[in-house]
């Protein structure tokens, strides 16, 4: 059986002789584990061609998917977080921000822009989960507030795409008050009778769920998205029991009456444009 055992330890092929495929050419679905070409995955709106798993994507991808020819004007692109509390846990908050900005090439956890969607002007604020878990601090609150202001001033419908773990602890009280601030602006938007569509994506929890994400004229979600106020771990620890299957999934939330509909990302643009068109 000697052919089963390696005579010499380790790998001896020199690096230049290795036959590797270039990075990022193939995408492996984390849900069904099947492999597909990244180009194919992208043209499928970053959903799995086999099982329809919706990959977590950020503002750049949503803007490209939604705005006609990726044409948009960004609002408040340079706003970034300050550190009013001089917050230090295992590392200082300022260090976290700088490191995350470098890593993600983003300024904070939300971007706002306006532009045409199938010909209809729309203001879209979109969260980026890669930036400290999409947590809501002063920048997120202020940028959303200003995007709503823009909607009101120009009478353009507002689309909010949420993907967030909730409040940003490192801004403590300030973070909490962003829930109030965004809700105040949404009260004004509602008064102005301008449509507000809230798209909840995987995951949307905590203070984001308990403020702007649940205040849409239309609360819609991507399939399978985790949506809740308290996170599943906290609930499990509180009640000391396992949670039912599909608890807090978009489908569960729809069944309990808190979503208007679930939308496949491949149909997102058409559906939003149709809805906005009907309200014209």
């Amino acid at each position: 059986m000697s052919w089963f055992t390696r005579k010499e330890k380790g790998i001896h092929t020199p690096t230049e002789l290795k036959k590797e495929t270039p990075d990022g050419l193939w995408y492996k679905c984390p849900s069904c584990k099947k492999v597909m070409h990244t180009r194919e995955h992208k043209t499928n709106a970053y959903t799995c061609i086999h099982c329809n798993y919706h990959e977590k994507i950020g503002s750049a991808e949503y803007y490209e998917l939604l705005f006609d020819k990726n044409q948009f004007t960004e609002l408040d692109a340079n706003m970034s977080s300050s550190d009013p509390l001089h917050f230090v846990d295992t590392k200082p908050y300022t260090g976290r921000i700088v490191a995350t900005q470098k890593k993600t090439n983003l300024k904070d956890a939300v971007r706002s822009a306006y532009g045409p969607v199938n010909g209809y002007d729309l203001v879209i604020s979109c969260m980026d989960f890669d930036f400290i878990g999409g947590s809501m601090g002063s920048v997120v609150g202020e940028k959303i507030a200003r995007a709503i202001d823009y909607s009101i001033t120009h009478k353009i419908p507002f689309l909010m795409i949420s993907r967030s773990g909730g409040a940003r602890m490192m801004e403590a009280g300030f973070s909490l008050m962003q829930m109030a601030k965004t809700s105040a602006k949404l009260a004004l938007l509602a008064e102005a009778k301008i449509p507000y569509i809230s798209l909840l994506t995987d995951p949307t929890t905590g203070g984001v769920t308990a403020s702007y994400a649940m205040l849409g004229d239309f609360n819609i979600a991507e399939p399978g998205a985790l949506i809740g106020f308290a996170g599943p771990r906290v609930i499990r620890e509180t009640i000391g029991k396992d949670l039912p299957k599909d608890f807090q999934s978009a489908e569960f939330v729809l069944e309990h009456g808190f979503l208007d509909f679930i939308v496949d990302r491949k149909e997102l643009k058409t559906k939003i444009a149709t809805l906005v068109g009907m309200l014209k």
Partner: protein
Amino acid sequence: MLLDFEKPIADLEAKLADMKQLAQDKHVDVHTAVKFLEESIIKLKKETYQNLTRWQRVQLSRHSERPYTLDYVYNITDQFIELFGDRTVKDDKAMVGGFGAIDGQTFMIIGQQKGRNTKQRQQRNFGMANPEGYRKALRLMKMAEKFNKPIVTFIDTPGAYPGIEAEERGQGEAIARNLREMFMLKVPVICIIIGEGASGGALGIAIGDKVLMLENTWYSVISPESCSSILWRSWEYKEQAAEALKLTAEDMMKFKLIDGIIEEPLGGAHTDINRMSQTVKQEIIRNLDILNQLTPQERINLRIEKFCSMGVYIE
């Protein structure tokens, strides 16, 4: 139950009581010693309570003898009619409310309610409201608006309840709706944090023209324990978390996230509930007088402007 930093004071107070008893029984003159002890107690109290750490204030805010919402209600109103139910699912015992008359003025008074003993604590769900609690609160606030009565809310909660039914019935939606609707209330709204002000569960009834905190309370986005468990991955760092979160009345006032601080009796609200209630009552009346100078639209505009100016960022 005594807190650690209350013990030295309690010891001295016990000593003083013994001495007075001795003097009475044996007819000894202990006049000077008594005076000395009394002065020491006041001195120690001042030293202790003027230098409390943030974590010690959190402990005081949860003191087992601390006055709760209904204690204030019964102490400051001449009449009170409690109203129940959200008209949809059930009555949430963690959120109480009703019309109460304070010096002849009718108020809608709403607040989270904690329990004193094990049975009550369970019944009140430790002051953690379910969605129906927030919807009950909103129903009562809309009724106050309809009959043009000012609103007072008492905030005292370790958070909105994180449970299966709470999620099924839309905890997030219930709180979110309260935030938006409270901004548009035409009547004056005064919110007072009387104990714990934890996160969205507190904010859900805390959108007011005047948001006030009692001296030994806390108000933040998360409890020190949960913050410790998430950021330090251990429950052991609650003291550090409390310091980092800057969650006391003084901190929140400094950041202009609240409108005022209500002083507590030396030693905390629980040491003199009557006096504490009277102070709270005076503050309610004083603030209502100020708010009555404004028109409903002015109050709404100022309320919105105030919360919209909260936040620190770089441009």
